[in-house]
């Protein structure tokens, strides 16, 4: 059966926030923001702006009935600046008018006088000044001081990685309107509806039950709408409450790029020690995370950098230090990989440097240090069902790296102006929110008397195919035709206290909750069937292919018939189930525990061609062997892998965030911030699904797939480095 979301997409019938028919009289909001990176607001004058035709009001900090606070992890972020502005793009006010253009014109007439204050953009400079978001974090394993003495080689270095704009095709947006009893309904393009609800309640000084957040789908999220969708949703809600009118905010692309958070740039120092035969004995790394002007999710992202600082390798002695540094740039936020890619980039840089100095290929070091079953990570968890070596062996068998390297050596010896390069990139990624309490989800399942089924869960559909995966899971569990099942919007009135759809966990958490809800209903239906068939026990009754079976014999009870009998017998056809990942914990004081339900594994080999005259390059191929567990839907998983790889390549190559000395983003449009187009992708992409790798910790034995493939992009960077060698 065809994926229903996809079917709507290709017909242009999927409704994004800006496509939903707006209520009559909807007004449009335009965000007025700081034009300087750091300063004091001396005065602000809305007078002239308020007189622009069509303008209905301007709201700012003084209009907030509750707290002017939207920070989640740390309470350090205001919705509207009051006394100080901390970055270019810091919202100061919202102009509300009958049309977008009127609001936009009026915003130009706001007169704001600032006193400029010194601004910091470099994370190391911020760290020197003690400007940290949270105290520094350190993960340790073994004893690094003793280990250096045993090393035959020690190499040190410093590396920088740039940030990345999410560039979801649908910009941030929300529509809010008053509902009966002083409440507000918010339709938002957010990955975290409960975050929006909770924060709106705080800002609007309303109980959470008066705020309903509804999300049908997102035109891409990638982490950029996990925390960063909140501000626009709340501004719209605040304006709707104040003016008693529906209010819509859709950020124009350039504003979206300028004022919303992105992947964190890091500056990092490493020291790596190896034995003569290439075993890594010790690794000391310090990460300076550029967090921007407020915490946002930076502390959690910082932790994941530490969790993944040794990537796919067992290193017995590790000291990893991470500092979240406060600067005067937009607060950086979640982005596919969530700090993991930055951690992996540094260890791969260390290996590259060691290999270069030793005159060998980095893959030689990579291979002999790969994780084995039972190896301990710096955070105390030991590998279980470790498949990284299987993936590596798969790459060797299918893609013949030795032949690739030989072919490249031969090519390079014959060509002066064009050089080729290749690299291998292993990826090991922990699956779970590392903030343990977030690993919960619930599902609400209705069966209607016509046999159709509706499922609500905490999962947000943003292109990753979670809706279709949940349908497959439910159809499989209930053993009914998938056509009967509809995934409803994610709504805080139907499913409460949701965790954001993030950390690649959407299908895992919500899938298990759906399975549990299905099981509850099956049990009830079996009892009804037993009763109807005048049997005492339900244990021999099975629901299969839309029919009731007893002792393997088909009865004449169909699913629809059974459902109707249940209704007649006054049996509830609704079930709610809650799932929480078992056996995970993490002690933030000792920084040890079992934070992950399991790990995702994969290895890729990448080839590039470099034009040395013009300084341009092409990616010839990316070939991967990846552990998907038992895939729930191969088309979806393949798409996640291909899409993640290309996004990762974009980050490591052409995508560039460039600020001027005043902290103004120069690459603030699609004309200057370039993401891969159809010509820029690898000419060949091969994704092999590793066989016989059922995952007992995933629904239907599957594995999470959202984030891990992005990190193959790091390999393309090193392939280019190798081409330049």
């Amino acid at each position, binding site marked *: 059966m065809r994926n229903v979301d996809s079917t709507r997409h290709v017909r242009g019938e*999927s409704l994004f926030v800006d496509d939903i028919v707006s209520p009559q009289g909807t007004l449009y909001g335009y965000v007025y923001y700081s034009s300087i990176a750091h300063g004091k607001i001396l005065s602000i004058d809305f007078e002239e702006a308020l007189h622009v035709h069509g303008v209905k009001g301007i709201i700012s900090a003084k209009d907030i009935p509750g707290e002017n606070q939207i920070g989640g992890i740390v309470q350090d972020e205001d919705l509207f600046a009051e006394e100080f502005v901390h970055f270019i793009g810091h919202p100061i006010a919202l102009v509300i008018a009958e049309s977008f253009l009127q609001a936009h014109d009026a915003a130009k007439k706001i007169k704001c006088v600032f006193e400029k204050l010194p601004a910091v953009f470099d994370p190391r400079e911020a760290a020197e000044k003690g400007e940290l978001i949270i105290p520094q974090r350190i993960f340790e394993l073994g004893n690094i001081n003793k280990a250096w003495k045993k090393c035959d080689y020690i190499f040190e270095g410093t590396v920088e990685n740039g940030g990345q704009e999410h560039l979801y095709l649908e910009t941030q947006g929300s529509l809010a309107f008053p509902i009966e009893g002083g409440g507000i309904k918010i339709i938002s393009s957010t990955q975290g509806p409960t975050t929006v609800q909770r924060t709106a309640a705080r800002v609007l000084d309303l109980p959470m039950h008066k705020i309903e957040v509804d999300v049908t789908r997102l035109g*891409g999220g990638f982490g950029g709408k996990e925390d960063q969708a909140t501000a626009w949703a709340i501004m719209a809600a605040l304006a709707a409450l104040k003016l008693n009118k529906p209010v819509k905010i859709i950020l124009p692309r350039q504003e979206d790029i300028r004022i919303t958070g992105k992947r964190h740039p890091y500056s990092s120092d490493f020291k790596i020690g190896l034995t003569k035969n290439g075993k890594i004995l010790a690794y000391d790394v310090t990460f300076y995370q550029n967090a921007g002007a407020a915490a946002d999710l930076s502390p959690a992202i910082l932790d994941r950098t530490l969790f993944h600082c040794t990537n796919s390798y067992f290193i017995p002695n590790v000291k990893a230090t991470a500092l979240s540094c406060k600067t005067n740039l937009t607060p950086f936020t979640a982005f596919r990989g969530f700090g993991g890619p930055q951690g992996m980039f540094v260890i791969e840089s260390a290996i590259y440097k060691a290999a270069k100095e030793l005159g060998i290929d980095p893959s030689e070091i990579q291979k002999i240090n790969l994780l084995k079953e039972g190896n301990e990570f710096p955070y105390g968890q030991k590998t279980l069902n470790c498949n990284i070596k299987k993936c590596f062996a798969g790459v060797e068998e299918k893609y013949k790296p030795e032949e690739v390297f030989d072919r490249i050596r031969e090519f390079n010896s014959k060509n002066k102006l064009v050089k080729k390069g290749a690299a291998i990139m292993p990826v090991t990624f922990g699956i779970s929110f590392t903030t343990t309490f977030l690993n919960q989800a619930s599902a609400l399942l209705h069966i209607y008397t016509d046999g159709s089924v509706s499922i609500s869960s905490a999962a947000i559909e943003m292109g990753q195919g979670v809706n279709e995966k949940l349908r497959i899971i439910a159809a499989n569990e209930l053993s009914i035709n998938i056509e009967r099942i509809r995934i409803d919007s994610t709504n805080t009135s139907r499913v409460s206290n949701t965790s954001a759809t993030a950390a690649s966990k959407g299908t895992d958490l919500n899938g298990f909750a759906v399975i549990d809800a299905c099981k509850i209903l099956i049990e009830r239906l079996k009892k009804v069937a037993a009763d109807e068939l005048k049997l005492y026990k339900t244990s021999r009754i099975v629901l299969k292919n839309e029919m009731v079976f007893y002792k393997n014999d088909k009865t004449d009870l169909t699913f629809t018939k059974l459902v109707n009998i249940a209704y007649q017998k006054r049996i509830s056809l609704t079930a709610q189930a809650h799932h929480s990942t078992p056996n995970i914990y993490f002690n933030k004081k000792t920084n040890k525990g079992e934070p992950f339900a399991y790990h995702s594994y994969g290895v890729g080999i990448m080839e590039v061609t470099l034009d040395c005259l013009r300084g341009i390059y092409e990616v010839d191929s990316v070939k991967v062997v990846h552990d998907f567990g038992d895939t729930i839907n191969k088309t979806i998983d393949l798409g996640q892998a291909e899409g993640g790889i290309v996004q990762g390549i974009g980050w490591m190559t052409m995508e560039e965030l460039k600020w001027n000395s005043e902290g103004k983003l120069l690459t603030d449009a699609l004309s200057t911030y370039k993401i891969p187009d159809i*010509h820029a992708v690898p000419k060949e992409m091969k994704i092999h699904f590793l066989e016989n790798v059922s995952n007992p910790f995933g629904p239907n034995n599957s594995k999470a797939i959202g984030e891990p493939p992005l990190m193959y992009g790091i390999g393309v960077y090193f392939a280019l480095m190798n081409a330049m060698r």
Partner: protein
Amino acid sequence: MINFILNDLNISTDLFPTTVLLDFIRKEKMLTGTKEGCREGDCGACTILLGELVKGTVKYKSVNSCLMPLGDANGKHVVTVEGINQKELSPVQATMVDEGGTQCGFCTPGFVVSMTGYFLNNLSLNPDDAIESLGGNVCRCTGYGGIKRAASDSISIFEDGKSDDRNHLENLISLKFIPIYFHDIKKRLEKISENHKSVDNKSSIVISGGTDLYVQRWESLVSSKGNLISQDKKLAGISKMGKQINIGSATTIEETKSSKLLQKYFPQWDNYLSLFGSLPIRNRATIGGNIVNASPIGDMVNILLALNSTVHLRDGKKKRLILLKNFYKGYKSLDKKKNEIVEKVSFQIPSKNSFFNFEKISKRTYLDIASVNSSIYMELKSGKITTIHISAGGVAPIPLYLNNTCNYLRNKTINTETIKNAAEISSKEISPISDARGSAEYKSLLLRQLLFAHFLKLFPQLVDPEKLL
């Protein structure tokens, strides 16, 4: 009144002709399948097809509706994704679903429209060309793997299902690539064409293709009465008169790119211009617009400079000619009077012993603005350079003609030393600045490399790359 067909519906509207077509589609007609992704022609989520009567048949081209004035739809057929929808999925839609060519779905209608446009426009089909036609659409989710597979599968469906008894349009209709109403569009357009009078409202804002003007200032354009000139047939077309080639100012870049005449004189012409914008941009952007826009990194201007082109200006009956290299006075400042419009540009056909090359470096190879671009035209006589014109974009406030470098190279023989000296001279007549497209040093280095690239490409036997670099 502006009269056109939107999908299957006849439209008559008296809205400002400068209204953005995308806004008309989404806000006036509530057709929300067409998306707004960037409003600068860089994402393709707003792609529509524009059908126009050309010599008795309807020709369709993909266009970014975010940069197109409503007035230019007059007398045409505008097709959005809703206009492609039938009861069942079209083969393009079905293969996009089956191959995973869509994830979040926001860019998807644009891809479906572009790909359908490819089938409408091309009698002979192959996957590479189909992919080429999607160069104006970006997708952030899929990595394009599924989209490429869908393009290839759609072609197979067409090839397997087409019948020689039907013409191309009938084949597309019978295989459900497009709905049946496309049959009658030709007749319906003929009726509109007969009835309509061209939009005429002369004002000071002259809008040609609008592909940069609408990026820079759509907010002010929509409330002004622009003078839309891109549909003025008198200003369009490419012709040869004696030894001179004329290109009308309203000729689109795509028409220029696919000109058989120009391809004859410049064998790599099609490749050079494939680096200009994207297909939907090239379908709207015009030669005149590119010249008057005066962007220091304009690709077409860069080429025309090296062809030592002449700009033909007209103010009513007054005509004036000026060499393109003398047309630019400073950043976005032209030797053009307020009422003068660029009528055409002309250059001499290249002589038999001539050489031409165009080089462009941008962060992304396609649909990107150059960091630096450069063109060279050269005539040789017994090993000596007799005529030479070199242009350089992105290294000065204006599209630059490298006067001193050309003066140095004239009457020289080509060898490594000469080229090195020329590069040295060129570095002294440029003034690049650091911006989003690179630092001043990087651009300076790039121009040197591109000068080397010109000679390495044109005279590989005369230049030793080892000594050059």
